[in-house]
């Protein structure tokens, strides 16, 4: 960790926002509507809430160990070998997450824009972009996110704002449709799985100038990204209605397609939206890729993460090519996403519990002799 600790709270917030907002923007309304019909916004809200709890736990853990990432402090808390095993699981999960991000991206590009380009090419271009960018240190990582956040937020907000004139509030009622609670819970899990990128905070805290401000950063991060997700769900449901959304694969893209900016400067917005969405995907992929190699570096106590960047590229690529088609891919994504919650929420909670117990016991031990 030779880099100077320079990351500010603002940068940490932007990292979280741009990491969380990613490929998930496109199918999100579909996930939410499948689970809750008209109560899709409610499902999203609970999903955000769950993700927020997970992030709080993680941030709290990070602040308790301000010089270490989850890879290193887990070894302190639950012992060297157990910690290492769990760390490998975490790393492997993020490896899969990176490859799924790249694959989902490739799928969208091949279906919506470049119909004749092979899927492999779009995926490998994106992965190469991430791999090359990962050769920078963590401060540059923060700068990159910091620069792109406004460019990611703006088009989504513009599309939402211009599309709202077609909104029909009737589609949003009833807000709470409680007929299939089990299904809604599943949707909630799927939505909060979209926030798994926020796990990156554990890597950011040790590089922050004042790690204490991490809590504020994660609160703002989840607030802004969660708010944006909620806005997208409300807008799409209010415009298309739940029944129609079930027929569409990427409702947000459809939303952009129906939107027209006044003045007829451009006939359609969806392509522009997709172009900017490339940015959002890049930042997400960049984060998970960076987290993977950074964690491998920490696990094996290597000096530099730069070499690893190209080394894991083939693995990510092959994993990305594993799903057979788009439907299969989304099945896997939902499955991996929900399973991932075990890693991103339950595991940190478990660590925090043990950490509390240990410090409580230590205090008791200290108290006893005196």
């Amino acid at each position, binding site marked *: 960790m030779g880099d100077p600790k*320079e990351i*500010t709270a*603002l*940068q940490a917030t932007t990292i979280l926002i741009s990491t969380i907002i990613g490929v998930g923007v496109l199918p999100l309304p579909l996930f939410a509507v499948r689970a809750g019909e008209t109560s899709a916004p409610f499902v999203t809200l609970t999903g955000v809430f769950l993700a927020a709890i997970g992030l709080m736990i993680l941030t709290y853990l990070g602040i308790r160990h301000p010089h270490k990432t989850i890879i290193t402090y887990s070894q302190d808390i639950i012992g060297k070998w157990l910690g290492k095993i769990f760390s490998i699981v975490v790393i492997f999960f993020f490896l899969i997450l990176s490859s799924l991000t790249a694959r989902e991206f490739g799928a969208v*590009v091949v279906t919506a*824009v*470049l119909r004749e*380009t092979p899927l492999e090419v*779009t995926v490998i*271009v*994106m992965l190469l*972009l991430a791999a*090359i*960018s990962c050769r*920078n240190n963590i*401060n*540059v990582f*923060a*700068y*990159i996110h*910091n*620069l*792109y956040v406004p460019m990611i937020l703006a088009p989504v907000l513009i599309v939402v704002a211009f599309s709202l004139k077609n909104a029909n509030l009737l589609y949003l009622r009833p807000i709470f449709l409680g007929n299939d609670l089990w299904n809604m819970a599943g949707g909630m899990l799927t939505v909060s799985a979209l926030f798994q990128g926020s796990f990156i905070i554990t890597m950011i805290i040790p590089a922050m100038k004042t790690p204490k401000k991490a809590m504020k950063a994660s609160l703002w991060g989840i607030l802004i990204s969660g708010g944006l997700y909620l806005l997208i769900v409300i807008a799409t449901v209010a415009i298309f209605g739940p029944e129609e959304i079930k027929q569409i694969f990427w409702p947000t893209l459809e939303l952009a397609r129906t939107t027209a900016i006044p003045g*007829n*400067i*451009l*006939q*359609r917005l969806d*392509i*522009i939206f*997709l*172009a*900017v969405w*490339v*940015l959002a995907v*890049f930042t997400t992929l960049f984060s998970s890729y960076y987290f993977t190699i950074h964690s491998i570096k920490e696990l094996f106590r290597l000096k530099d993460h730069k070499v690893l960047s190209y080394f894991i590229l083939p693995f990510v690529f092959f994993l990305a090519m594993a799903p057979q088609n788009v439907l299969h891919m989304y099945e896997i994504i939902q499955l991996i996403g929900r399973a991932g919650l075990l890693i991103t929420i339950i595991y940190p909670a478990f660590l925090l519990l043990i950490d509390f117990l240990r410090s409580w016991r230590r205090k008791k031990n200290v108290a006893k002799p005196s």
Partner: protein
Amino acid sequence: MSFFRKKKRTVKKPQLLTPSKLVSQKENTPTSSSLTETEKQIKDILGNNEDLKIKHFKIFGQFSAACVYFSSLVDKDSLNKDILKSLMYEPDHLMGKEKPLTQLIDMILTETIYHSEAKVGDSIDQLIQLMLRGETVIFIDGIKEAIHIGTRKVEKRAIDQPQTEQVILGPREGFIESIATNIALLRYRLPTPDFQVKTMKIGRLTKSTVAICYLKGIANETVIKEVEKRLSEIDIDAILDVGYLEQFIEDNPFSPFPQTQSTERPDKTVANLIEGRVAILVDGSPFSLLVPVVFNQFYQTTEDYSSRFLMGSFVRLARILALVFSLIFPSLYVSLISFNPELLPTEFAVAVAGGRAGVPYPAVIEVLIIEVSMEILREATVRLPKQVGGALSIVGVLVIGQAAVEAGLSSPITVVVIALTTIGSFATPTYTAAFALRMLRFPIMILAGIFGLYGVMVGVIFIFNHMLSLKSFGVPYMAPVSPSDYEGMKDVVVRSPLWWMPKRPDFLHPSNQSRLSENENKMLEHSKLGNDQREGTTDGGSEGNNSTSSHNDLN
């Protein structure tokens, strides 16, 4: 370059005793007290040169002496009047006084010679070095030491308007080749003891004077040290321009982006010094090199600050637009035409398709052809003599453009796009930065030809990531945008009014941050009052006592 290679080869030849080797052999050998012997030594080394002059004369009519100089380098007027005349003609106050040989030098320096730069030297190699820089050396028979006098006079051009950075509002002076004049231009604007100039000599053959200028107490000490360190590590035969230094001290030599700024304008240099940067000047180069730099300063000009802030901001916005144009406009065109024509409004799309009807090539090839020919035209116009240049640009741009469209080589819209792009790249005030974007346009165009908008996006992300990873002397290249800095952001897209920017930009880590003084600023008070209220106040601008403000300084 071939010139240098030849030089190297001659140096490699074994056992050739060049004059410079002779000089270095004589290192620290004291001059002989005998005049004839010294003369012989000098003639051995420099005797071949026509412009080496040795003039014998008698000091005060009794001590025989010789003055040695290069007639091409010295100011003969001053040599005759101030040196020879004063030495040969015994002054009144020394008449009749005893003049022992041991005190002669002291007497000459303090009482006789009418020259401010007269000094004593005693080793032959040092004296020869000084002679080669234009000093006159006087050897006196029977005395070991010699007197050397700064009589250098080299032809230089007049101070002129800077050719590469012209402004409408603002000073008209530009740097010239002579470093002394350039430093004078800076000192004239910065009459403060904080303004420091450190000099060093770089280049084994050229021994160019390199000056590091900064404001002590404002510039960051670590940056100054780093600049000195990087400069002192350079060991090269020749430094002919400031660009030589640039290549040695920049952080990432493989990046297309300039990591130092070179400017011809003294006012720009001073403005940057005041922000906390360090300027490097080289003798023989009319450019100063500013470090550390950030990207946003490449589209700023001094004019932005001297004009009113609305005007400055508007012009700057136009420049940013031009910058974006020059980078991605052709690639956007290519991707829209060949991948997503549905984005265009229908009428326009039809017009574009009609224009392209006779063109056999795909859009990317067409744009590349026109773009390459544009580059050739541009390069040709720079090299051509002024008289022909205008004619060529008319023939090139108008005639060839028109003919290319009519011959079916390209569509009219392509010509429009390329013309806009080219003009856009001229709107960037810094040549080096404009060049970087000009180069990067080609890979993005090719990406656009393969992947459409997705390719453009990937290219742009790649360029941005590269820029974000750059650093110039420890300062992130994209500061103050990312990492963001509140004070610096006031001067990025819009140029905020000067009284809105009380602090120097933080990203340069200046030692002293305050730009405006803390106490109440009159200017601010005025601007807070409405126009009608101002009439009643007594401290308005029309009081008249302002006109008395220090006439003495106006010389």
